[in-house]
């Protein structure tokens, strides 16, 4: 059943004198596809960086599965089960597609330096599991045939897919997607929606995404929060957001009000 997975409680973030986020609160339930929209500079990416531990909030608390994760470093938050992708793709570009996914699983493997150096049973077992997961995941997004290609040689859409799969190698319970459809053509966007639905339905992953493509957001998100100048101005279902006067004025414009 639906439970609270991620809870932001009165989060504020200041950079010098600039208040990038102001008292933002919302709750993401398990199995949600939760969208965050808003004009450029509204604080969407800042929000992602707060959740993943790159910044520590100036005020407020972030809870993941009931645990306060305010002060945890990024690598620990990743290991807890929050995977993410980046707005500007950050792949390990001169490494193979397969290696990218294998590195993605780093946070859930434990063998240490000497275990790896001498290839002790534990390290070998983990390596085998990692490779099996990687094969499964790459097959899911049709990239297994290209597993030995350099990540930088993939097409744009493939790189986006690889980044998602890399995040999935952590077996996350929450996946943050930062503008996953940016720069994609309509066909690729359609595929992306398929993948996101698959993640929710087959893999029980909760998804939090930031996106500018309203078609995609309105289609797949069950709940949407709208940010404007660092403040949350609305939250609700796609239908509610589409008809919210303040959201229309500040972001959507009238064209969407059909």
């Amino acid at each position, binding site marked *: 059943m639906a439970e609270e997975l991620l809870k932001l409680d009165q989060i504020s973030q200041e950079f010098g004198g600039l208040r990038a986020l102001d008292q933002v609160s919302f709750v993401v339930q398990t199995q949600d596809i939760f969208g965050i929209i808003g004009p450029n500079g509204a604080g969407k990416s800042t929000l992602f960086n707060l959740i993943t531990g790159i910044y520590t909030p100036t005020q407020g608390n972030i809870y993941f599965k009931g645990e306060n994760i305010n002060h945890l470093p*990024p690598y620990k938050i990743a290991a807890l089960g929050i995977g993410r992708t*980046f707005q500007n793709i*950050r792949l390990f570009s001169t490494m193979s597609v397969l290696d990218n996914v*294998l*590195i993605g699983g*780093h946070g859930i493997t434990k*063998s240490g*330096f000497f275990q790896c150096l001498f290839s002790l049973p534990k*390290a070998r077992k983990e390596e085998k599991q990692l490779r099996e997961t990687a094969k499964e995941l790459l097959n899911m997004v049709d990239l297994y045939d290209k597993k030995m290609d350099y990540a930088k040689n993939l097409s744009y859409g493939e790189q986006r897919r690889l980044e998602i799969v890399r995040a999935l*190698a952590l077996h996350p319970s929450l996946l943050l997607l930062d503008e996953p459809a940016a720069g994609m053509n309509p066909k690729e966007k359609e595929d992306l929606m398929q993948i996101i639905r698959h993640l929710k339905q087959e893999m029980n992953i909760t998804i939090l995404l930031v996106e500018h493509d309203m078609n995609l957001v309105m289609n797949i998100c069950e709940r949407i929060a709208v940010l404007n100048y660092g403040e949350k101005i609305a939250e609700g279902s796609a239908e509610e957001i589409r008809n919210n006067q303040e959201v229309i004025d500040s972001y959507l414009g009238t064209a969407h009000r059909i």
Partner: protein
Amino acid sequence: MDSIFSQFLDAYTMRIIILIGINLILALGINLVTGMTGQLNMGHAGFMSIGAYTSAICSLNLDTPFLLSLFLGAVTAGAFGFIIGIPILRLDGDYLAMVTIGFCEIVRVFFLNFEPGGKAVGLSGIPQDTTLSFVWLLVLIILFLNYRLNRSRIGRAMFAVKENEIAAEACGIHTSRLKIIAFTVAAFLGGLGGGLYSHYIFYISPQDFSFTKSIELLNMVVLGGMGSLPGTVLGVIILTIAPEVLRVVAEYRLLFYGGLMVILMIFRPNGLLGGVRWYDVKQKWFKMKSKTTKEG
């Protein structure tokens, strides 16, 4: 063992082969921290120096057996790597390079004034225990372990830190710990190489481990290809032999050496074997072979 080699190798060739082995151990350390993890280390000679002096002093004053002296030298260097690694690995790029140069100089000046190390005169009469077979046995072990490491989660994570630190953190990689591991192991290898060096050359002085030595070792890794094991081996072989071959041009030696580096860097900016994967080589070769069999 070495008596067998000396039957068909003259002393000069044996000396070069031993030096290649020692340089390889040193360069593999730099490859680990700079080539794989991407942290520019220009102070490797400092660790080499610590290892060389520690092991030499142990052998001379405490009469410890060769293996123990060597081990103590390497561990001391490794400990220094760990201790200074913690604060300085917060820096990156040029800043880290500056600090490591500083460290190298501090170590040099320290030994210049260090009474048990013979001050500026250095130490002489160190037992010449380093043999060709022993050096190369160590080289093979280290190469093998390094190869293993490259194919494990830790090795991959090191490459990931070099490629993109933010993405690496998002994958659950504790980047600062990984950098410290790489730095410590590199320092250990530096100390090991230093110990082998002092027990081969049998005379050491602080001038042997100047900043120039660090650059020379770094050059070998850069020339071969950062992060590439076969590249590092090739780079070390070329740059250890080059000064010997270039003896014919006498005082123009350094000119040739410099020119060679410039030309190589223009045509192969990633180093000779940088970015070359065994997988691609195999693919290409296989394709060529199947083509010729088809035609035949």
